[in-house]
């Protein structure tokens, strides 16, 4: 067996393990969805009643919620890896003659499968709240693919962080602290044109904004009569999102694998 096919086979064995783990802990899906559902209700019915963007606000902000959900569930990857470290499982895996990438590939794949369940649940919530997909099946499929790829890329970031964490609990809280502002300083919940200058620039170049813009276009949720965006990533949101995904993967896959090679549990 050559090195590549061995890496694929090791990765698949560990993907299987993580899917089994996730299936036996359905609370991960439930809790990953609970906070976004609460946010959706809060924004949709409480804040939304005071927000006037000249169109159906709930339809506008559900895409923001979907994006936020994908970002937050990606944090589960780091937390899961920190658990494996704490329980000494990473030591066991590292003592086995397997590809150095396999443990991380298995974890990110398993979490990607989990993310599919979460996004289905969140989309149903959105539909109940009045969100509609007003485009073709192909466009909608591309939007879901972008959400999914983005979550997968962020999984690799949290994986790299998870390998250096002292405890899974601390890591979970710390990552929320970082990820939540990322989703708020963007066009997720309000149009970013009205933000103060500094925040507007951050929001324009925030990868989350490109993803949200791309999904709004592809789902047909852009408010009618909105002025065309002025910055490149929002003018070309699909390409920008794909570039962000490629950039994140190109940096964080090698970084995470490099850290994995050196890590031992405390």
């Amino acid at each position: 067996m050559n090195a590549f096919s061995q890496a694929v086979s090791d990765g698949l064995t560990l993907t299987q393990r993580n899917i089994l783990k996730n299936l036996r802990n359905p609370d991960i899906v439930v809790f990953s969805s609970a906070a976004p559902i609460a946010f959706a209700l809060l924004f949709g019915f409480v804040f939304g009643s005071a927000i006037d963007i000249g169109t159906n606000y709930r339809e506008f902000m559900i895409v923001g919620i979907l994006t936020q959900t994908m970002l937050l569930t990606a944090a589960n990857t780091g937390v899961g890896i920190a658990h494996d470290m704490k329980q000494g499982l990473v030591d066991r895996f590292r003592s086995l003659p397997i590809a150095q990438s396999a443990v991380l590939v298995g974890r990110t794949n398993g979490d990607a499968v989990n993310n599919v369940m979460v996004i289905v649940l969140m989309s149903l919530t959105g539909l109940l709240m009045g969100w509609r997909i007003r485009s073709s099946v192909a466009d909608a499929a591309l939007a879901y693919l972008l959400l999914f790829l983005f979550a997968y890329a962020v999984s690799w970031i949290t994986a790299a962080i998870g390998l250096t964490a002292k405890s899974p609990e601390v890591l979970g809280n710390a990552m929320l602290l970082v990820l939540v502002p990322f989703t708020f300083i963007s066009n997720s919940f309000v149009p970013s044109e009205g933000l103060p200058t500094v925040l507007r620039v951050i929001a324009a170049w925030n990868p989350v904004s490109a993803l949200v813009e791309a999904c709004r276009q592809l789902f047909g949720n852009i408010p009618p009569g909105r002025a065309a965006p002025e910055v490149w990533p929002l003018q070309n949101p699909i390409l920008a999102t794909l570039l962000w995904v490629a950039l994140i993967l190109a940096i964080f896959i090698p970084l995470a694998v490099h850290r994995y090679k050196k890590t031992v549990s405390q």
Partner: protein
Amino acid sequence: MRNAIVAEGLTKRFGEIVALDGLDLAVGEGTVMGLLGPNGSGKTTAVRLLSTLLRPDSGRATVEGLDVVKDAVAIRRKIGLSGQYAAVDEDLTARENLRMVGKLYHLGTAAAGKRADELLERFDLTADADRQTKGYSGGMRRRVDLACAVVAKPKVLFLDEPTTGLDPRSRLAMWQVISELVEGGSTLLLTTQYLEEADKLADRITVLDRGRVVAEGTPDELKARTGGERLELTVGEAAEVPTAREALRELASGDITVDLDDRLLIVPVSIGSEALVRSVRLLDGAGVRLTGMSLRRPSLDEVFLSLTDKSRDSHEARGSAADDAKAPLR
């Protein structure tokens, strides 16, 4: 005899802490080496270096003739490791854990399944094989962990404190399992804080303290190093203990230890059974009534304490000198 494990001058630091300070080790093929030492003595670091989880800062080591740095991947095919915590996936069943490890050793799905069944049988886990291991007792989890370590019939097995945290019954069961494994001809490096465990399982023992080897030998050799036998005498009255101690002074090869509550005197002697006869005469002459006596070899506990205490004293002297030297930098 060929050596399955060789270490020469292995050193590993973590920041300021020197975890291993020039470890030399040689473990003959098919033998059991017990690595004995208090917490923080470098046992786990030694196991992690030899099982390729860590790289040494200096020195070199080979396992089955392969270099732990250059040939790490090849070594991983030949070793089994059971770390300090039972590294078992709690969400999976014992059978699923074993099958996964079998597949990761590239046995193939069918062979991994067959091997899992064999090991479940052998480690007495068949009844619980399809239950998630999160419900297992500490002893059962340890057995699953050990079974995972031997899935690929490794030539060299590393067990890091395999019975720490187990109750006495589980510990005995674990010893039984380990003894059987070794009969199969594997080389075993075992770390432990329990002297009894090293005495029972190991052919040779290396005593570590503060990252250095302070003694090495068979359990018998180590016991002999502490000098001769121990004569234990019980006298009739607590008041007679000081008199007895005075009378026995000429017989003792070291300090006499006394326990007034139990009216017990422990006398280190180096003249074998002649000590029995002479002590009776001496005590009779002093008018002390004797109610019990025995002559025994020193226990490994006594050996261990005398070895590690000695090196601790000298280390503390060095440590404070180092602190002084560092002080102006702060």
